[in-house]
């Protein structure tokens, strides 16, 4: 089953993707897959990390057009750094989400990227914000995004329980991304994880052969 067109050569690089962030008492767990595709047919990178650190304890996940996502993320890093220097203290997660939203909303006609902003701050602790494509911001206990997220709505609705521990959240996140990668052909590769708590941020990478295996038919 192959196609003979070469449209992918002129297609934009997109992170057809699966991203997820979930909050627990004490921190957040953030995860993504690692595939960047062009035209839905060519995998232009199989090891890209879509979990970007925008500040010491604030991360954001990218989805949609990779160029747009990177441009916005870099602008946010710059602005957040400046804001934090002016305030003289680490920025709030809500500030990062707000800055992200400003860019997404003001340029909503030109951009095509969605984000999840998650992290820890001293005022409200662990938070997860979903900053979707037009610039809407919603704070939630957990959120999923990207093309692969469609396939795991049922799974995360069924499996999420308030009051999970850090390890349970890591398992929840890894399972969700694996299931999405199994069904979405523009998500794949390895699972990138980041865990942010009061004491700092820790990154983790789970290679393809260590991912959970679900029943196959």
């Amino acid at each position, binding site marked *: 089953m192959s196609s003979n067109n070469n449209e992918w050569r002129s297609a934009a690089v997109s992170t057809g993707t699966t991203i997820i962030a979930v909050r627990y008492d004490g921190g957040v767990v953030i995860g993504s897959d690692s595939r960047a595709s062009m035209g839905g047919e060519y995998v232009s990178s199989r090891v890209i990390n879509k979990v970007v650190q925008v500040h010491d304890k604030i991360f954001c996940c990218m989805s949609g057009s990779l160029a747009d996502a990177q441009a916005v993320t870099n602008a946010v890093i710059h602005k957040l750094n400046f804001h934090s220097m002016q305030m003289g203290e680490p920025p709030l997660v809500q500030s990062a989400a707000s800055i992200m939203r400003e860019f997404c909303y003001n340029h909503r006609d030109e951009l095509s990227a969605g984000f999840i902003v998650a992290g820890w701050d001293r005022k409200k602790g662990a938070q997860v914000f979903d900053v979707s494509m037009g610039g809407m911001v919603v704070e939630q*206990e957990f959120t999923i995004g990207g093309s692969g997220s469609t*396939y795991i709505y*049922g*799974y995360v609705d069924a499996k999420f329980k308030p009051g999970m521990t850090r390890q349970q959240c890591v398992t929840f996140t890894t399972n969700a991304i694996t299931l999405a990668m199994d*069904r979405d052909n523009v998500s794949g590769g390895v699972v990138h994880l980041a865990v942010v708590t009061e004491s700092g941020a820790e990154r983790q990478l789970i290679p393809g052969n260590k991912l959970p295996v*679900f029943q196959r038919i």
Partner: protein
Amino acid sequence: MQGGSACDGGSKGLKMGTTIIAIEFDGGVVLGSDSRVSAGESVVNRVMNKLSPLHDKIYCALSGSAADAQTIAEIVSYQLDVHSIEVGQDPLVRSAATLVRNISYKYKEELSAHLIVAGWDRRDGGQVFATLNGLLSRQPFAVGGSGSFYVYGFVDAEYKPSMTKEECQQFVTNTLSLAMSRDGSSGGVAFLVTIDDKGVEEKCILGNQLPTFHDP
């Protein structure tokens, strides 16, 4: 509700944006569906039973264009009737699925419907066949319809081989409930049909009796 929007249904066609599922257990099958029929943005029937009998112990689950799916089911029901008289015994589930597949494949450009065929016969017990786009594939379980995309992850994770009849019924109910809460084109009540060697059991689970999950 303005009259204008209510009349849009005619041009958009009745669509069963839907969630359908069928799963096999040792000795039979369980089929499930939601009950919403939409025309554009309006719900024209909120209690439609999309599980349609093709023969005594063979049912099919309808999705896609309501007219196309119902017509295929009626034609196959007639063809199966004739076939079972010719062979002098109850038809095989595979025969029913093949008849559905033949119509879906031959008219694949004109039709827009996906039927999942499931039932019980004496030769191979419970069987589930998917006939999407004109293929014929026997599977331990199959999901279909617009709502199915949201529950692929859930069914991949939760399915275990060798589940009992009750576990299958619970699996189907949970899957339908999750899909109905996320898919705008699925909703209403859940219909379940369980077929085994003893007979056919039809059940309807009302909206407020469906299992609830995390609702942000």
